[in-house]
């Protein structure tokens, strides 16, 4: 193990980790927005909302994220959609994780006991009022953990944006390998940075989950 080399290059990896973090954070935000919208649409009684939501989830969970990313980045310009690597990365990853988040959010909403909606409706609350004041506050607590799992998956999966030359952790590792011929050190170093990010996120998710958990 060439520790001298690691000492020399680690700051560049730290800078790359910052890019990984940014692209992941933005993609997660986009995924959450899409996930909430699609989850609510998918449980709507209106088929014009429900159907597109189901299609979205099926397509983006049913095809490789890498292909989706290539389609957006390389195929986009063909239909007039010109995106830089970073933008394409955020959008591609965000739309993909949004499909998974849709299922997490939908699952949490459906996991709230049926009696809760009945009790709310019996008091004379409308469907939207019941959702907002009774179902969603409980569902939010239930979705913290699954969404945390999605977020961690996304952070690790963000390595694929190296293929469209976003200068993040994986891309940086490749670049230093081609100049140093030390793949072992470089991939270990990149892994450590991923591990740190994922550990921090997991810890945060656990804390949030504990904080919002219903007393029992």
């Amino acid at each position, binding site marked *: 193990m060439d520790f001298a080399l690691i000492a020399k290059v680690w700051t560049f990896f730290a800078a790359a980790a910052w890019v990984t973090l940014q692209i992941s954070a933005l993609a997660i935000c986009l995924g959450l927005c899409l996930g909430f919208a699609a989850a609510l649409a998918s449980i709507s*009684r209106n088929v014009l909302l429900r159907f597109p939501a189901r299609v979205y989830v099926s397509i983006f969970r049913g095809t490789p994220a890498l292909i989706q990313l290539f389609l957006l980045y390389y195929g986009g310009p063909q239909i007039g959609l010109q995106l830089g690597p970073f933008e394409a990365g955020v959008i591609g990853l965000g739309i993909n994780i949004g499909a998974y988040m849709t299922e997490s959010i939908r699952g949490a909403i459906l996991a709230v*006991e049926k*009696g*809760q909606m*009945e*009790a*709310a*409706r*019996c*008091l*004379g*609350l*409308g*469907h939207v*009022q019941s959702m907002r*004041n*009774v179902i969603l*506050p*409980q569902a939010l*607590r239930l979705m913290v953990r699954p969404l945390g799992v999605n977020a961690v998956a996304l952070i690790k999966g963000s390595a694929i944006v190296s293929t469209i030359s976003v200068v993040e952790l994986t891309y940086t590792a490749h670049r230093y390998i081609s100049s140093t011929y030390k793949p072992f050190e470089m991939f270990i170093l990149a892994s450590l940075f991923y591990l740190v990010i994922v550990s921090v996120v997991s810890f945060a998710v656990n804390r949030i989950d504990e904080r919002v958990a*219903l*007393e*029992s």
Partner: protein
Amino acid sequence: MSNDPIIRIKDLHKSFGPVEVLKGIDMDVAPGQIVALIGPSGSGKSTLLRTINQLEDVTSGEIFFDGALVNRDLPHRQREKHLNRLRQDIGMVFQHFNLFPHLTAIENVTMAPVLLGRQTKTQALAEARALLEKVGLSDRADYYPSRLSGGQKQRVAIARALAMNPKAMLFDEVTSALDPELVGEVNKVMKQLAQEHMTMIIVTHELRFASDVADHVVFMADGVVVEEGPPDALFRAPQHERTKAFLQQVFEG
């Protein structure tokens, strides 16, 4: 007090898929009347109760509440509005309490009147305190449901329903999920409501309580009303074999 029934059910049928669970029910409930619905499991009594506020829709027949046809055939949006308005006047208490676990006892009680613009937050809090006191839970106002016993939860649930100032209350086996020693405290609250002439329909397995508190008992089996009458008559001198068999089973069991 008018003599028109506050709840009138006419030739009500309800099927779940191919299974008909209500086979033509007729029933009148006068204002202030306390009706106990008894019968074996699967007789349709809970379903009947749930059709009154349309937690279950019906296959055919009519339900009137306070003069209005509950199951009016309306487009979805209008039907929702119509039901939201009606449901404000029909309190319901469930077997499994269905308290909102993310809200404290008093928040459970104040939520609906505030959201529906019935009361200001301040009014609702004062009203809720009075209701919690009425059900004997003043000291539990700020507890979350998870910290309450079953009996306490059910009493909060009753207070929550009363907060809308309903014209009638529906009780769906409200003591069935309780430990035996907690049944009394809930029954006591219901008796108190009965004394205040709240219109009540009580689905129950507790025949002693039914005979104590109800002024009209309806015995259902297999989706029909087999026999009904004042508790004394129905319990002491049942006319139908089906009723006799049921009572015998329950009292021997």
